[in-house]
């Protein structure tokens, strides 16, 4: 249990240094978002300054930011919801009938470079008149969410003893009934992990939305990126936008910390 790699005082110094390195960009972003342009470009950088809300007022006032916020939420929620619908039965089947090939097949969607699907999607969605539509965007984000759902839930279902549904089936229940009424109600923690992680990955996605969305369905990462190119020098506004986009993912992570850690590490640690 005890690791005596470093003496306690040195250990805490090292931990504090690590925390500072991790936190520094966040703190800098946050403080810059409350600075005026004059304070941001002042040299040397100002640690103490008069905070202003002007950047937030500008971003949320002029930039239609709430619409992009809503778009990100719609796309993420729909993509995760549909992925659960498709992914939960698939994951159950993989866990109970040990369908390893199937698991690898779906996981490939997570491993392969997104751009090798994106280019054909662009051609097909253009032909179908689906550019800048929620449909195209949600379908593309489902390819992000589905492998995460299947990956996490197949491991989770495998930890639930088979006897639970088998005894119900001996009593005459069908397997799909057992899945719906016995297994799913026990799967809350797994579903929370899968939902949180896949939502965050959809929320943060840049490449798919950059190509498939335009003014109507534009999501937050694209809005933040465009904000940078319009207003290259307005660092305060850009930083306020960056805070706004990161805040939901960070809040989700804090609330579901335990689940997020499990989801991110399980793939590598479990066999």
């Amino acid at each position, binding site marked *: *249990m*005890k*690791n*005596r*790699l*470093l003496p306690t005082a040195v250990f805490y110094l090292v*931990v504090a240094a*690590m*925390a500072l390195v*991790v936190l520094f*960009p966040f703190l*800098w*972003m946050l403080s810059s978002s409350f600075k005026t342009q004059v304070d*941001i*470009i002042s*040299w040397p*950088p100002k640690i103490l300054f008069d905070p202003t809300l002007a950047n937030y007022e500008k971003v949320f006032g002029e930039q239609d930011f709430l619409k992009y916020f809503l778009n990100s939420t719609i796309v993420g929620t729909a993509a995760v919801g549909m992925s659960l619908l498709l992914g939960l*039965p*698939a994951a159950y*089947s993989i866990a109970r*009938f040990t*369908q390893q090939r199937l698991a*690898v097949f*779906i996981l*490939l*969607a997570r*491993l*392969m*470079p997104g*751009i*090798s*699907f*994106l*280019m*054909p*999607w*662009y*051609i*097909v969605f253009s032909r179908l008149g689906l550019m800048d539509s929620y449909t195209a965007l949600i379908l593309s984000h489902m*390819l992000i969410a*589905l492998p995460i759902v*299947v990956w996490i839930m197949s491991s989770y279902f495998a930890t639930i003893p088979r006897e639970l549904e088998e005894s119900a089936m001996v009593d005459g229940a069908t397997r*799909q009934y057992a899945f719906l009424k016995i297994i799913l109600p026990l799967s809350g923690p797994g579903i929370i992990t899968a939902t949180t992680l896949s939502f965050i990955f959809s*929320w*943060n996605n*840049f*490449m798919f939305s950059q190509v498939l969305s335009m003014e109507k369905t534009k999501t937050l*990462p694209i809005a*933040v990126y465009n904000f940078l190119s319009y207003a290259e020098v307005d660092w305060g506004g850009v*930083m306020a936008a*960056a805070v706004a986009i*990161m805040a939901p993912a*960070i809040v*989700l992570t804090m609330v579901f*910390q335990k689940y*997020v*850690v499990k989801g991110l*590490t399980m793939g*590598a*640690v479990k066999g």
Partner: protein
Amino acid sequence: MIRSSFTDRHLHWLFPLPAVLFVALLMVFPVLYTFVLSFSNWNLTSGQPADFVGLRSYARVLAEPRFLHALGRTIAFTIAAVAIEGLLGVAAALVLNRAFVGKSVAKLLLLLPLVATPVAVGIVFNLFYDPTIGFFNFVLTSFGLPPGLWVSHQKTVLASLVLVDVWQWTPMITLIVLAGLAGLSEEPVEAARIDGASEWQIIRLITLPMVLPVVLTALILRLIDALKTFDIIFAMTGGGPGYASETLNIMGFKYSFEYFRMGQSAVILVVLFLVVFSCSMAIMKLRSATEQ
């Protein structure tokens, strides 16, 4: 009753069927389509249908210095990022692998970079890297060192981008290795300690070999993602200055959505796909090998 027994017997393919159809439609079909397009010289803006020219697009793209440089850069970026993240990530995990006050806070902090939106991370680092107002040059000049140009110079841009990737993804390795360390049995370590082994010997000869499979899996997962790095490069430099930070992913993106040369773009995507695919197959092989 008869219907339900039918679904019971066929559940093993009925349950996964919708997911499989979805992946086939949205992944397999597009990948095949890309492969077919790579044998054409189709330009989307020409208004002409695709003209199939055999391997001519391959000959053209593979001989282009811009492509070879992008391929080399992709590999260099990936190796540098994953090597540094591996070293720092494992070291941090070894340090943090003990009970201490604030451990759960420390773990939460490690999660933050992983869930931060990469585009926004790139923008924040662009502010750090700014040659005139950036914090990094402030630090350098405070120590009497000459200021750097960071992402604005061809020679330093790739290393500067690696640094961003290292900041964002090292915690991933740390968290995975920490979870791996937590699952190890204490006995060999205790026995070695009783036999008088030093802490360093214990780590080198006992802990690291035991946790090696987890480290390898974490590194390969990271490797696959590093090969595909897009968001931070696109947001921070767009592949520039010049082509100095253009990786295969960025080059493929530009060929597809800026030049609309779909045939040549498909060649780039096929190469990137093959690189990532062979790494992914390696991970599967390695996992089944380490499980025995």
